[in-house]
């Protein structure tokens, strides 16, 4: 690397070329965090200008003590240093980066510490085996035996990267350090060790996995702190994948069984949450004998959080069952529990189940689905909790493939209508978002017949957020069904609202035109929409008039230049001399063609705030 030469050249070249670098260096200590952050992000530029020598002897010592700064600056610094090897002179000098990263690895902010550890792991690969033992490994030891737990937690993440590349004596030391940290006094360090246990096990020789890791794993899995025990569940997955099948039963399963029945619901929750991974790790035989009953228990757990986590895994668990007797296991063991969950007392459990239950139909096939699953789907479609119904509706595609949507449509429609008219506007909003998906699955015919009226009704909802979502929904429908469909079914209804006595509805016409014009194309926009917009420029409500100006600006690019000159321009000019200042403002904006952010309102915009006020009121009433 030619850092030094760059700096010499810069010096010879003339003074002004150093100026930007000088600014960057000075701004490393600017009072403004953003400027400091900016300088840190360009640290490589500074280092390049200083050259490798000065970077090592001046810049890095300065950075080593820069640990008082804001988290975001430290985070950026920790990240930069991970890519600094070439800037300090290549792998030969990479150890110079250790001191600043070591001090960053002891700060209290977890994200910064984690980033420092990540960078240390990265540069560890650039150390030669000798440097690793001379420089890197001592750093790991220092951190591991540090006074403060922040340094000891950081050490936990570094063992696995140096272990494979050091001599067997050093390996023994590293194993010893890890053992010590696994029984550290503070729960934080034990948590850090537990979370790195799996990763460390992967780099250990199998004999040490059996002799060392298993005992540590067993100890952590029966730690007095719930938060440590639950992390051991995660390690369980990695350890199980490392061991030969015949050892699993004696070395891992006792601990896993214990975790699945732990007194603390948080640990059982973790087991439920990791169930698919555990299932893959222990293999089909143990799954059949042990995990199926364990899973049944989790589905029937007394704590709703655990049941919800297990319910979330129902589909994945069933999918991964050994194929030879998958159907039998599901029908006799899992389905009875699932049936109970459909009428669970807790709505989170029901809605977790609703988000995956449809997936079972592909596994069980048409006949079983119709006989056993369909009644459950229908029950959930009628659930009192809207979230459950929404989750079923949003996953209809899986059932569609197996039995066709017609089987469901009978119950589907009332469920959708009910959600569409729910008193909570957030629920209405959620179902609107599924409309394009539903329309795709049900087909245009069914849609026109049953759902189109709903979509149009949302346009005159009394909550602005719903009207807004409804216009967006129309756009997506047009994208799906095409311009011709739009011309026949949607556009006439939308344009009809331009004559509505309520000015909010008239404005909705404009918002719809804004959204639809692009999908409908030039022809429809010019021939059908433009005349309506232009006519509305005579509206008596100023809010409508200035929205006309905004609409004209929006659809302008779609129109041909003839229409722009002969029709749009005169109207905008007329609006630009309107009596209302807001109308004037937006008309002028449209004429000058400036794009402007929607949130930026002209000062003293009385009318406009009136509009906002109404919409806010709408929403407050409906929260």
């Amino acid at each position, binding site marked *: 690397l030619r850092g030094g030469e760059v*700096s010499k050249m810069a*010096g010879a070249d003339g*003074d*002004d070329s*150093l*100026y930007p*670098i*000088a*600014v960057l*260096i*000075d701004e*490393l*200590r600017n009072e403004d965090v953003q400027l400091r952050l900016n300088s840190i992000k360009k640290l490589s530029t500074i280092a390049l*200008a*200083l050259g490798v020598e*000065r970077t090592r002897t*001046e*810049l890095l*010592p*300065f950075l080593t*003590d820069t640990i*008082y700064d804001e988290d975001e600056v430290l985070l950026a610094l920790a990240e930069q240093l991970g890519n600094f090897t070439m800037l300090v002179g290549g792998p030969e000098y990479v150890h110079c980066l250790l001191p600043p990263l070591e001090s960053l690895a*002891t*700060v*209290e902010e*977890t994200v910064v510490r984690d980033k420092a550890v990540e960078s240390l792991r990265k540069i560890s690969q650039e150390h030669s085996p000798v440097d690793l033992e001379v420089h890197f490994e001592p750093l790991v030891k220092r951190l591991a035996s540090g006074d*403060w*737990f*922040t*340094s000891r937690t950081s050490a936990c993440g570094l063992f696995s990267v140096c272990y494979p590349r050091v001599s067997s004596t050093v390996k023994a030391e590293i194993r010893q350090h890890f053992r010590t940290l696994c029984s550290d006094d*503070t*729960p*934080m360090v034990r*948590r850090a060790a537990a979370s790195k246990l799996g990763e460390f096990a992967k780099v250990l020789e199998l004999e040490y996995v059996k002799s060392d890791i298993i005992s540590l794993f067993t100890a952590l899995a029966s730690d*007095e*702190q*719930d*938060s440590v025990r639950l992390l051991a569940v995660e390690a369980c997955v990695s350890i199980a994948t490392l061991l030969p099948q015949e050892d699993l039963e004696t070395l891992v399963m006792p601990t896993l069984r214990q975790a699945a029945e*732990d*007194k*603390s*619901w*948080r640990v059982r929750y973790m087991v439920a949450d990791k169930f698919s991974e555990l299932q893959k790790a222990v293999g089909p035989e143990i799954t059949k004998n042990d995990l199926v009953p364990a899973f049944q228990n989790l589905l029937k757990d*007394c*704590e*709703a*959080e655990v049941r919800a986590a297990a319910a979330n895994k129902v589909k994945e668990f069933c999918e991964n069952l050994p194929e030879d007797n998958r159907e039998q296991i599901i029908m006799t063991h899992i389905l009875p529990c699932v049936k109970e969950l459909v009428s669970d007392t807790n709505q989170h459990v029901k809605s977790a189940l609703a988000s995956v239950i449809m997936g079972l139909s592909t596994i069980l096939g048409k006949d079983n689905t119709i006989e056993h699953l369909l009644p459950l789907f229908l029950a959930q479609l009628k659930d009192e909790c809207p979230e459950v119904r929404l989750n079923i509706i949003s996953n209809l595609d899986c059932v569609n493939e197996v039995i066709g949507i017609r089987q469901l449509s009978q119950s589907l429609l009332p469920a959708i209508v009910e959600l569409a008219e729910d008193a909570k506007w957030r629920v209405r909003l959620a179902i609107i978002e599924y409309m394009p998906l539903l329309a795709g699955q049900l087909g245009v015919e069914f849609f026109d017949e049953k759902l189109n009226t709903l979509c149009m009704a949302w346009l005159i909802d009394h909550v602005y957020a719903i009207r807004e979502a409804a216009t967006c929904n129309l756009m997506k429908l047009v994208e799906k069904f095409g311009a011709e469909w739009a011309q026949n079914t949607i556009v006439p209804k939308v344009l009809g609202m331009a004559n509505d006595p309520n000015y909010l509805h008239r404005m909705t016409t404009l918002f719809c035109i804004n959204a639809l014009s692009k999908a409908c194309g030039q022809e429809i926009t010019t021939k059908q929409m433009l005349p309506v917009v232009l006519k509305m420029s005579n509206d008596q409500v100023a809010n409508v008039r200035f929205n006309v100006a905004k609409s004209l600006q929006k659809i302008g690019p779609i129109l041909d230049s003839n229409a722009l000159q002969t029709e749009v321009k005169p109207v905008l000019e007329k609006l630009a001399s309107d009596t209302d200042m807001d109308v004037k403002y937006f008309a002028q904006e449209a004429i000058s063609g400036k794009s402007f952010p929607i949130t930026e309102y002209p000062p003293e915009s009385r009318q406009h705030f009136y509009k906002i006020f109404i919409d806010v009121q709408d929403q407050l009433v409906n929260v």
Partner: protein
Amino acid sequence: MAGKLLFKGREKDPPHLVSDSHQFVFSADIISTVEFNYSGELLATGDKGGRVVIFQHEQESKNRPHLRGEYNVYSTFQSHEPEFDYLKSLEIEEKINKIRWLPQQNAAHFLLSTNDKTIKLWKISERDKRAEGYNLKDEDGRLRDPFRITSLRVPVLMPMDLMVEASPRRIFANAHTYHINSISVNSDHETYLSADDLRINLWHLEITDRSFNIVDIKPANMEELTEVITAAECHPHQCNVFVYSSSKGTIRLCDMRAAALCDRHSKFFEEPEDPSSRSFFSEIISSISDVKFSHSGRYMMTRDYLSVKVWDLNMENRPVETYQVHEYLRSKLCSLYENDCIFDKFECCWNGSDSAIMTGSYNNFFRMFDRNTRRDITLEASRESSKPRATLKPRKVSTGGKRKKDEISVDSLDFNKKILHTAWHPKDNVIAVAATNNLYIFQDKIN
């Protein structure tokens, strides 16, 4: 041992500790909480003005071997400001209700402070180096000609006078509808709980945008409200256990392992009421104002208006020890009710080895009880009676008709001078006593 305590004079008063000899006390200066950190090296106080003052234990000096070293001001900062909740038209006081230290994790110290609504995590750190040398300006701050820069200067760090900085690290807000009365850091060192009148929330120390409600005693109809939560604390070793006390004089122990919601308790501590002493005030004076686990985790102590009780966690039906704090006030309850003193919330604390307990009373008196010898003592925290290095004299309140020499009559007690907040050093016999706007630090005499 209590008699050997002596007053520790301070060289300089921190800004908000105005002498009470002026009679006039700014209400913002009234100390509202006192707390030692885990090592006892630091002592934090919070006041009604939203300020936190931290005192540091100075190293022992050779020329004054009889003293253990003083506590001097280490850092002062404004933790909370008065606020206004526009949606509810409510003023939110800046008064610091509680301070809790976090176990030390690196060279810096961290504490949680809370007012009625918002909990803040503060970092208190030292800085003793300063960067020097700019490219674009001279040492004296004059700008250099940008076109005359011929070389780059990297700043160098130079030693400087020690500076202590307090910086807000996290703000845990918007989770309490009612007033926060307690915060307590869990032994897993990653979560803490906060309790208000009706609910207890569990927080992760690194996550500010959500907390979990673990106890909710709010009745569906607020007119049916009969009981409020008065204090809550996590067990010192078992991460899943916490207790909360109620205005009905009961304590519930909950196990977070059993369920995510702890509305159902696992243990319920209540002493059956003695029907002979029942009066109009029974319910008010049985309300628990503070609950504290012993360091060992085997016992807990509760303070009600007239007494301190020690409970064995394994025995729910009655306390193992009961100490009368100021039984002579029983006949005065009527007037204490009229001047609202009956609602004062006295706190209590254990010494480092759990062998003694301390709690406050009126007239700047505080009480200490030795659990082994069952002896008790009343001491007074006041400038007049406790000169630096003087030994505190035991005080006595006359209860009978005839007042002996050195005794104080119940009628002459000053109920405006109350000691609500006290703290005991986690290892040594050093105590901190907050008397209105004064902080007194007493320590065992070393002979």
